[in-house]
């Protein structure tokens, strides 16, 4: 899907910096407070009815981006437009109304539900918050209906989160996100903590609900097969930046960024084991407290050249709707042709 004039979500140059608070002792000692640029100048859009998959390794800034879009974390810079309206400029009251239309399902089904609230209270909260039900009885009735839809039932209304399995808790989280009839949902790794058979159940449920309710998803995952299965377009993130983005078939069948290629080659494939020559990336994700200069991937990139250490590459279009940020794009190389061990330490 290429950009239309009026995408549901449009994100422009979004950044989020976490500033550490400084203790008096540190200030006296002249220690610099930490600051993490978790999301750095990210732009993308999501079309109505589309699933945009966001993939990247732990700590690269996926959750931060998802939350900044909803202003659950206040962005440091940049703009988010939802259905044409500037979310970043909304007053607290207007933002509250907007939240009815934009929801989130969280990563951890164990931590994201209040252990002292019943299912009826947890799932019913958005109804109360947005004045969508007049009486307690109406809340219960609406909650029961949505519980049925996500594979639970009215008998679960008065139970507490600890009485449910991980998969059931994730269903509760989905019910809470859906009950206000939103148009857009950030799914932040909703299946990562689950066993594969339960993961498949939840993926199936999310896709059915999307069709039924006409939803649009920003779907975050670190699992390429999950993203490959359910997203229309995919964005690949590394250390706070989107390094490649485009139609899923295009990006996953013909990844152009060395990092996307390395990710693809690292995924064990149950259907074709040993299909790709392995690219063994040296080292780990660098500390976001002290990210590399130039291209942030240069410390691990098998194709890095001197220019990569000095200058950050800008995103270029390689096919319709398919963008990549890499200095060596024109040479059309791929990491598995080099055979070299990665990294220019």
């Amino acid at each position, binding site marked *: 899907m290429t950009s239309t004039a009026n995408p549901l979500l449009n994100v422009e140059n979004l950044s989020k910096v976490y500033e550490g608070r400084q203790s008096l002792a540190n200030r006296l000692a002249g220690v610099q407070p930490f600051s993490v640029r978790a999301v750095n100048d990210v732009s993308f859009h999501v079309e109505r009815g589309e699933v945009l998959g966001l993939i990247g390794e732990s700590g690269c800034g996926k959750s931060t981006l998802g939350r900044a879009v909803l202003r659950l974390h206040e962005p440091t810079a940049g703009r988010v437009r939802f259905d044409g309206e500037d979310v970043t400029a909304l007053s607290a009251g207007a933002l509250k109304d907007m939240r009815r239309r934009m929801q989130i399902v969280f990563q951890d089904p164990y931590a994201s539900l209040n252990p002292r609230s019943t299912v009826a209270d947890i799932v019913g909260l958005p109804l109360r918050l947005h004045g969508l039900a007049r009486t307690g009885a109406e809340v219960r009735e609406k909650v029961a209906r949505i519980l049925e839809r996500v594979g639970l039932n009215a008998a679960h209304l008065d139970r507490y989160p600890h009485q449910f399995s991980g998969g059931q808790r994730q269903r509760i989280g989905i019910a809470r996100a859906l009950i206000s009839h939103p148009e857009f949902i950030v799914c932040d790794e909703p299946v990562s903590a689950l066993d594969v058979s339960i993961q498949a159940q939840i993926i199936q449920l999310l896709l059915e609900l999307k069709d039924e309710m006409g939803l649009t998803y920003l779907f975050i995952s670190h699992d390429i097969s999950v993203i490959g*299965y359910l997203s229309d377009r995919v964005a690949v993130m590394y250390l706070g930046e989107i390094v490649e983005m485009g139609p899923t078939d295009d990006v*996953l*069948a013909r990844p152009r960024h060395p990092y996307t290629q390395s990710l693809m080659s690292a995924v064990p494939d*149950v259907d074709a084991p040993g299909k790709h020559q392995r690219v063994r990336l040296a080292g780990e994700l660098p500390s976001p407290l002290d990210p590399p200069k130039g291209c942030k991937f240069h410390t691990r990139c098998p194709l890095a050249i001197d220019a990569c250490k000095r200058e950050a590459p800008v995103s270029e279009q390689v096919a319709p709707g398919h963008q990549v940020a890499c200095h060596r794009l024109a040479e059309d190389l791929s990491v598995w042709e080099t055979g070299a061990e990665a990294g220019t330490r």
Partner: protein
Amino acid sequence: MSHNENLLEVDGLRTVFDTSEGMVRAVDGVDVTVRRGECLGVVGESGSGKSVTFSSVMGLVRSPGRIESGSIRFEGRDLTRLSPREMRAIRGRDISMTMQDALTALNPALTVGEQLSEMLDAHDEDLPARGGARRRAIRDKSVEMLRLVGIPSPDSRLDQYPHEFSGGMRQRIMIAIALAPGPKLLIADEPTTALDVTIQAQVLELISEIRARLGMSVVLITHDLGVVAEHCDRVMVMYAGQVVEEGATVDVISNPQHPYTRGLLGSIPRLSLRGKPIRPIQGQVPNLVGLPPQCRFYSRCPDRTEACLQFVEMRNVGSDRRARCIALTQEEVA
């Protein structure tokens, strides 16, 4: 099959936990064979008994758990009959296990170097007998082990504590400690589950490399069938405390016999399946307290019939293939 070929033979293992809700039959009649030099994959959802099975092999089941019955033969010796002291000698020297959670499994109060030294001091028989020469040899060997598992500047990192390393590095340090005495069998319990794919690939390749180099056997516990496909010669599928299918990895993955194995394979999302529905297994893993003696997959099985409401045994379903399903016909054993 000669005894020589099999390094480890577990027969009819039952491990139970006495809990307030009743007796949890975590491992209920499990047989395992690990051949010399092979990598055996063990897959199954959480709670299927993978960790308890191999903690039992290691003699590490603690109260309220206990091994109720079964034998565990390592190079022909029954480990269940050894004294705690004899077992300690085997653990580490002959069999090592890396635990699922590297941060809690490493001792937070000791440096990485101290933990490596302890292992080497207890088990390495090639070291000088005592004194400074022994200490230096241990230090050198420790550095060598960290280098082997790809920790940069191992000399200086020896004096750091576990929390100063990232998740991937901690897993590699655990592997270094497990490998230090040169075991014949390495049991790796979900060594990569908490890691990113690029780091997972590093750790798994490391294990494969060392296995080939040292000719050791590996048991790789995981819930990722892709990992099994890439790294294991044979695979054992566990469900609710029992083995439900076993065989060469290629056979099991290309032609699964048990409905649960089929369900697991069908649950994996794939790029190639885009736009088509996946067929998840319905329901969830049963509670292991007070299970009726029927097929344990009954409540979720798409193929169940009344005939399945009885105890179902493992049966031979091909050369070197076994599965636990009544719908499969037992093949004559040659």
